[in-house]
Each structure stands twice: as structure tokens, then as C-alpha cells.
């Protein structure tokens, strides 16, 4: 990726905190988080289950407001959802009443593009994610992996500058997941969009990311930032390289510390270590 000096679309968070209030309990989800994601970068938030990493993504998406702190894209504070920031969620958020094409062209329809033109563009993206021939199928007729492809195509077709992905491959089987990761990398390399990816899967984070923000257990703060200096383009062979193993050892140690905090089992900890 070419470094972009304009940094017009840099995502910056300063002292970001989110606290949920519900059922008489106050749950801090994110606390005093700082980060900066450059335009065109593929950044991963890596954390244990329930650490508040999805909350970070929902703040960037503009779906929830931070309790404290600021979040910016370029110079503009994020105040709500925008078609500049596309989303892919873990559980299919496809419109079940629309066909594959109807889903993918939805953003363009909202922009007021006419039926013929938006259908054409939608079909290009459907082809790009390898779903040519399924344009008229409904989401419930597709497998989980295919549904995630439609989600990706739908986000891409709207041409946002940033794509937010919340464990998008979390519910897929291992083979499908690795295919999807390679597909995502090839698309990212072709379009050069900023991708913010949330996962609890260490291998997924290392394989995809330029940089990994390793998060602490709830409330999420930045534990450590890990630069992934693996060459691109990456294929699955890279996962057995020495460099990869080295990064993985480092990240696993970090994540393990946090997992043990959550489980709170000191005996297990000493025995395992």
C-alpha cells in the first residue's frame, strides 16, 4: 500500500470511553482508548470474547456515542452512521426480503441511482466476490460463507472509504474462513480502502493486518500495538514462516494474560505456564 500523506481519512480516537447503563448496572465497555488508523490501512482490534471490541467498532460506525473522549475521521467528529463507513457484521445483517442483487444495490438505490445502472454495478461486485449466478437468490438460500460474501459486496458497492468488519468470518468453518480471508486481502489490495477488523482469532489478525491493536479484558484499553511486518501479498503459506510464528508467540502471550484475567483461575495459570 502506498502511504497516504494527506491523512484526510485518518481515524483517530482520543480518550475514548463507553459505559453501558442497563438493569441497574453500570458496565464500562471501553476505557480511555487512544488509536490512530491511517487511510488505506488494514487494522485489527484483537481481544478476548466480551472485551468490548465490538463496541469500538460501533463507535466508529457512529451507531453508539462515546460516553467520554473523541473520535474523528480526518478533522470531522463522528456523529452518526454515514455511507462513508460500510459495515460487515458477524451474524448476517442481510435484508432477508431482498435478493442478492437487491441487497448489494441497496446503498446505490439510497443515493438515487436509477435501476439499470445500480443493477449493473451491483452485478460487478457480486461477480467480484464470486457469486455470479446467485443474483436472484434470497439470503436464506445461501450458505453462511456466501451470505458473508454478499455482505462484503453490499458494503463495497456503496464505495465507502472505510469498511468496518465485526468478526465477519467468526461463524464460518475453518476452510471457508481462510478462503474468505484471502478474498478480503485481494479485494483490499485492489481497492485500497481502510479496513477496521475486529476479531478474537490471533491467526486471523496476524494474517490480515498491517497493525494489531491488542486489547485488554473488559473494559477494553490498548494493551499493546503490534506492527505486522509480513510481506504482501500474503497467502496461507506465510502462516508457517518463522517471522509469522514469532509474531504469533508475542501476540498469544499478550492475549493469554488477558484471558487469564477474565477466567481468574490462578492455579490453572501457574500449571499451564
Amino acid at each position, binding site marked *: 500500500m502506498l502511504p497516504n500523506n494527506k491523512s484526510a481519512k485518518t481515524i483517530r480516537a482520543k480518550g475514548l470511553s463507553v459505559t453501558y447503563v442497563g438493569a441497574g448496572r453500570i458496565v464500562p465497555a471501553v476505557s480511555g482508548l487512544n488509536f490512530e488508523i491511517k487511510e488505506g490501512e488494514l487494522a485489527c482490534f484483537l481481544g478476548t470474547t466480551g472485551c468490548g471490541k465490538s463496541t469500538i467498532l460501533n463507535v466508529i460506525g457512529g451507531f453508539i456515542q462515546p460516553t467520554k473522549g473523541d473520535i474523528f475521521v480526518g478533522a470531522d467528529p463522528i456523529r452518526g*452512521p454515514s455511507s462513508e463507513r460500510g459495515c460487515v457484521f458477524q451474524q448476517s445483517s442481510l435484508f432477508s426480503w431482498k435478493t442478492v442483487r437487491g441487497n448489494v444495490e441497496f446503498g446505490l438505490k439510497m443515493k438515487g441511482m436509477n435501476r439499470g445502472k445500480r443493477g449493473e454495478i451491483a452485478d460487478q461486485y457480486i461477480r467480484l466476490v464470486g457469486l455470479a449466478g446467485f443474483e436472484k437468490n434470497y439470503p436464506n438460500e445461501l450458505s453462511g460463507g456466501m451470505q458473508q460474501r454478499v455482505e462484503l459486496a453490499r458494503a463495497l458497492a456503496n464505495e465507502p472509504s472505510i469498511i*468496518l468488519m465485526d468478526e465477519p468470518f467468526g461463524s464460518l468453518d475453518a476452510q471457508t474462513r481462510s478462503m474468505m480471508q484471502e478474498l478480503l486481502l485481494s479485494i483490499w489490495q485492489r481497492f485500497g480502502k481502510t479496513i477496521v477488523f475486529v476479531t478474537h482469532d490471533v491467526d486471523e489478525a496476524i494474517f490480515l493486518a498491517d497493525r494489531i491493536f491488542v486489547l485488554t479484558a473488559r473494559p477494553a484499553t490498548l494493551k499493546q500495538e503490534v506492527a505486522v511486518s509480513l510481506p504482501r501479498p500474503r497467502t496461507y503459506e506465510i502462516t508457517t514462516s518463522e517471522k509469522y510464528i514469532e509474531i504469533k508467540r508475542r501476540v498469544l502471550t499478550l492475549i493469554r494474560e488477558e484471558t487469564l484475567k477474565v477466567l481468574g483461575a490462578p492455579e490453572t495459570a501457574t500449571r499451564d505456564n
Partner: protein
Amino acid sequence: MKQKFVKRVCRDLGRMSLVLIVFLVLWQIIITVWHISSPFAPSPLEIGAALSSSIKTGELTSDVLVSLQRALTGFVSGSLIGILVGILTGRVKLIDHTIGQLIRLFRPVPSIALVPLVIVWLGLGEIGKYALIFWGVFFPVWINAHLGAAQLDKRIMWAAQSLGVTRWRGLYEIVLPSALPFVIAGMRTGMAVAFVVLVAAEMAGAFGGLGYRIYISHQVFRVDKMICGIFILGVLGAISDVVFAAAVDAIPWRRGILEDSHAP
């Protein structure tokens, strides 16, 4: 989709007619074998005779048309307003806390209890009938549209917002279609309620219609004509129910959203 719908309607009505014919034949046999003959328990053949004579005089056709017009007017208006208000109360907190609360207050009142009041206020004319049926249909449609709108996964709404949908357009583009299976279920209940209220209103005071005919026949002990009216009401109710079940089935994306025992 359309073909599937028509096929389904024909199949279900066919099955029903078959069962009905067997039922009537058995009934006739029992009456013939045991010589049960009384004006208070007419045989299917006698009822058939009453049916054909009231068709000949044009009485039945006019009763059916009058009743259908009332039921449909009340049903369509009650459904439309029920859907509109349900979507709004399901998604907009302010509307739910005001109009929604008011509706919850009125909902437990059985519409039949309103019949005398409506006669005082609106008289014996058509407007009163429309109002009563509207009242009966509105609540089940409203509650289902409300629940359907409220159950929408927030991620689907978020996805739509990140694709540029505005709040009010989202109600039409996202909330309404995702609530559709609920809405149809509510309309199905509403249709059944429409017939109940229709008959109650027609019996309490009207100048025509199936409920009126049953009531008037009762006054002169024409049990055969009473059963005739009851039979036609049953047939109309069954047809409308079959049409609704088929409509739900014809939604191409309904699998996984609404599972019912009718699936082929």
C-alpha cells in the same frame, strides 16, 4: 410465486370441500336412518333447498354482498391504519409512549361491547358497521405490526444506515418488509375478528346482511334458513383464512422466519 399461491389456495379449498361433502353425507345418512325429522333439526337436503330458494329470490346474494362489503371495508381500513400505527409505535419511542399507551388502554375493550354505543352515536347505517369492524381489526393488526417492527435486529438497521438510509425512509424500506410476516399473521387474526364483529353488529340492528338474516330467521323459527346463513359465514371465513395462509407461504424469503405446519 403467484402460481404457487393459486395452487396452494386451490389445493386447500379442494381438501376442505372434500371433507365438507363427507360430513354432509354422513349427517344426511344419520337423519335418514334414524328418521330424525323436525323443523328444528333440518337435514342437509332441507337446508340445501332453503339455500337454493334464497339464491333464487336474490336474498342470499344481496346478504352476502352487503356483509362482504362491510367486512372488507372495515378490514382494509383497520389493517392499513393498524400497520401504519404499529410501525410507528414499534420504532419511535415518543409515539409509543403517547399514542401507543392510549391504544393499550383501549385494546382490552371487546368490540362487541361497543355495539350499542355505536348505534346511539352513528345509527344503524353502514358507517357504524365500518367503525365497529375497523375497531375489531385494528388491534390485532396493530399489536403484530408493533412487535414485528420492534423485533428488528439493530444490526440490520445499522447496516441500512451505513448504506445511507434515512430514519423515515428506513421505516418503509427496512422496518415494514422485515415486519411483514408478523403483519400478515395479525391480518389473519383481524379477518377472523372482522366476521365476529360483523355478525354481532348485524344482529344488533341492520337492514340486511348474513347476521341480520340469521337473526330475522330466528324470530320466525326458520332453523333451515338460520343454518343456511351460518353455513355461508363458515364458508366465507374458511376461504379468507386459506387465502391468508397461502399468502404467507408465497413470501419467497419466509423460510426460516416463519415456520408453520402448512409447509408442503
